[in-house]
């Protein structure tokens, strides 16, 4: 945890999990034994040790109130929990940073208290005595009868009750002057066998980290009580009839005594109130249903699955009367995929909705964006986000991302395209023209979420080609070029990705989908020659053919089919194209020899991003003879 906000998120999320856990434990209090009741605390330990994932919650979406508080402090950074413990990375300069520093001091103070208590105890134990012969014999006898190991034992004057202390070399500490009851010894030796001092130490560590959360402190007490109840169960399983009653009497006799509270220790006595609960549990010992092992494990697995992973938040509160809450809810929903970042940006454009834009905006853009949208909301101006053009996007046409490619740093860049209802600036629409908005976009991971960064302003584009989802020849494509002699070979590749938002009835659902993948892509390529020489040189060529295949990053070039036949042309799903054309005198300078496209779609599962080819490998055929093999590399704009 690197900030106050991360700590709040972690501790409040764990508190939500603890509430659910307590409800479940209460439900099964009389049905599943103390062993299960204690094991259930392991789930809370997992929640506390597992950094809360951004956008996930257990009972209440605490990220929203945390983001609201951050908003009041004008802090629009993303909250992310890296570690389950606090780390101070810089000298504090703002109020939240000072509060975080104060919290860390509290952690250190609490830890220091425990360390001091342990040092005091160690000092006392150094001057303690070994047990007398009778006590030592009794310990050995109990260990032998019940098949348990023993450890170093000491006696201390003035101690109210026995306890076990230490992790690596545990010590059994007994009150001096009395011979301990066999059942008390059995209890402590069972703690030794199960290494319960380790659990006690873990609870202390978690107490240090969450010292200012009284609810979790209470849960820590309950956990240690269940630890003792579990040990009681183990004792009772080894005793019978009268011995069990004697054990209860031994507990009752301790009720008015004090008891030590030292970390990494366990003791039979844990408080008068708890002893009365434990005596009740002893009376219930035989009443737990038997044979519940499988279902108790299943219940724990399901509980762990829900409480550790939490629920994904994906509801934006679009109540603009409370903009702080609305923007906080938008910031609390991260886009978890690159496709979701592009899609959310597209929905922001289609709806001109500033909250959607906040969802996918980079941390650097958050403050300015928040101010702009807040100002418009306060003035009741709609739409509340200026998307860049003075026009309305056409929702029923959806959007597409053209020429999506993965960059070296793991981000993605592409060209956002959507259709406009009418030309911007009030100009009249011309028949046969399609008015588009284009913008180069980048999606990258930032603090565990995908964000969208515009690389340029939104541009108006007027096209006559009416296609939006398949090969619009007027929208920029990627040109792969290579030259051999006077022949320039070119593969023109255009890819389109989109999430289908438009139903068959023409309704566009613009609700953000922060976890979506693209549902469709289409890939089109054309193969083209350009002759760089004179017409006389061109006229010596009567047929040109090309067979070309894309090579993606990390992949090996494929074998190319021949393209020297008269009528053989085609393509396959890997993007390989081949074809040829006869040429008449006077042809040129450019000629298309092959072209085609292929698309895939899966609305249920989504499809992976198909990026751009790194290069093309091409066989050139001149007058039906293989003239050479070229590597075609991508260039900005047309081939030069």
């Amino acid at each position, binding site marked *: 945890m690197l900030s106050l906000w991360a700590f709040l998120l972690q501790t409040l999320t764990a508190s939500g999990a603890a509430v*659910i856990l307590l*409800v*479940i434990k209460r*439900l*099964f209090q*009389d*049905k599943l034994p103390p062993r299960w009741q204690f094991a259930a605390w392991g789930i809370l330990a997992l929640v506390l040790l597992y950094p809360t994932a951004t956008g996930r919650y*257990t*009972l209440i979406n605490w990220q929203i109130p945390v983001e609201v508080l951050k908003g009041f402090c004008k802090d629009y950074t993303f909250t992310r929990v890296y570690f389950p413990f606090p780390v101070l990375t810089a000298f504090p300069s703002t109020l939240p940073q000072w509060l975080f520093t104060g919290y860390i001091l509290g952690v250190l103070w609490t830890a220091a208290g425990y360390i001091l208590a342990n040092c005091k105890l160690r000092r006392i134990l150094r001057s303690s005595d070994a047990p007398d012969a009778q006590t030592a014999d009794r310990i050995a006898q109990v260990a032998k009868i019940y098949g348990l190991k023993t450890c170093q034992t000491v006696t201390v004057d003035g101690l109210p009750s026995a306890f076990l202390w230490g992790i690596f070399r545990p010590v059994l500490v007994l009150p001096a002057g009395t011979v301990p009851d066999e059942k008390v010894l059995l209890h402590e030796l069972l703690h030794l066998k199960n290494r319960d001092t380790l659990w006690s130490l873990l609870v202390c560590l978690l107490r240090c980290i969450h010292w200012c959360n009284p609810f979790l402190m209470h849960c820590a007490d309950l956990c240690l009580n269940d630890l003792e109840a579990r040990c009681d169960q183990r004792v009772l399983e080894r005793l019978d009839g009268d011995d069990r009653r004697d054990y209860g009497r031994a507990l009752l006799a301790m009720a008015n005594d004090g008891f030590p509270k030292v970390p990494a220790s366990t003791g039979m006595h844990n408080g008068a109130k708890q002893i009365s609960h434990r005596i009740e549990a002893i009376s219930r010992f035989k*009443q737990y*249903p*038997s*044979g*519940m092992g*499988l*279902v108790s494990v*299943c*219940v724990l*697995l*399901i*509980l762990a*699955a*829900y409480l550790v*992973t939490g*629920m994904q938040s994906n509801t934006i509160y679009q109540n603009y009367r409370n903009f702080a809450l609305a923007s906080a809810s938008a910031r609390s929903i991260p886009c978890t995929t690159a496709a979701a970042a592009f899609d959310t940006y597209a929905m922001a454009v289609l709806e001109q909705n500033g909250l959607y834009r906040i969802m996918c905006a980079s941390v650097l853009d958050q403050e300015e964006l928040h101010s702009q949208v807040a100002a418009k909301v306060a003035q009741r101006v709609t739409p509340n986000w200026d998307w860049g053009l003075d026009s309305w996007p056409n929702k029923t046409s959806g959007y597409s991302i053209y020429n999506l490619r993965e960059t070296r740093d793991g981000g993605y860049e592409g060209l956002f395209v959507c259709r406009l209802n009418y030309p911007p600036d009030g100009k009249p629409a011309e028949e046969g023209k399609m008015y588009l908005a284009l913008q180069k976009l980048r999606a990258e991971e930032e603090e565990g979420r995908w964000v969208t960064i515009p690389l340029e302003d939104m541009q108006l584009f007027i096209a006559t080609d009416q296609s939006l989802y398949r090969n619009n020849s007027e929208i920029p494509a990627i040109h792969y070029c290579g030259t051999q002699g006077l022949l320039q070979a070119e593969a023109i590749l255009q890819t389109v990705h989109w999430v289908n938002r438009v139903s068959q009835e023409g309704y566009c659902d613009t609700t953000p989908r922060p976890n979506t993948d693209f549902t469709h892509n289409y890939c089109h390529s054309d193969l083209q020659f350009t002759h760089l020489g004179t017409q006389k040189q061109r006229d010596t060529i009567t047929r040109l053919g090309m067979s070309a295949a894309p090579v993606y990053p990390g992949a090996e070039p494929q074998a190319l089919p021949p393209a020297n036949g008269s009528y053989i042309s085609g393509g396959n799903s890997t993007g390989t194209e081949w074809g040829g054309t006869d040429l008449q005198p006077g042809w040129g300078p450019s000629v298309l020899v092959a072209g085609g496209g292929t698309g895939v779609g899966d609305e*249920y*599962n989504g499809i992976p991003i198909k990026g751009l080819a790194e290069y093309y490998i091409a066989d050139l055929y001149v007058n039906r003879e293989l003239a050479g093999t070229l590597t075609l590399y991508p260039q900005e704009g047309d081939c030069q």
Partner: protein
Amino acid sequence: MTDYEKLYKGISRAAWGYLLVYFDFTFNGFNILPDFIGWLFFLSAIASLKEEQPALRLLRPFAWCFVIWSGIQWVWAVFSLPGIQISPILLLPISLAELYFHFQFLTNLASVAATHQPEDAPHQKRLLLCRTVQTVVLTVNTLLVRFLPQSIFSGLTVILLFTHLGAAVFTTIILFQLRKSLLQAQ
């Protein structure tokens, strides 16, 4: 009422209860085999068998909760009231209680079968098998929903669904068979 009469009544009610709880027959949006009646049958079964199996008393509060919960759901469906989105986390106690209820209930019914049937009678083992299969299937299904991608999930779901259905049918059949053999034993 004699012991065997009580046993017969208890097992009979349990069998009818499972028929109603496991199987729905919806006609015009109206479930004519409402679950809440099945839970009332379970309550009656518990009342009849609690002396034979004292642990069954622990299930009474769960059964009452499910009578109310399934009753509300049935009324909601009958009057076609709009659905309410409830977080799966809030439904978790109900799901876990139901998982536990059926496990313990079937364990206790199997124990009744073991006590009052000949040693070679198959009812106890079969009930325990159905109980185990259903518990494992429900747990695996829940974990799949949480962790695995839908593409894998969709195939496994079908397998789990049919397994659960098979176990449900088998459980009901075994309970009716047990009821019949208790009648003959009486």
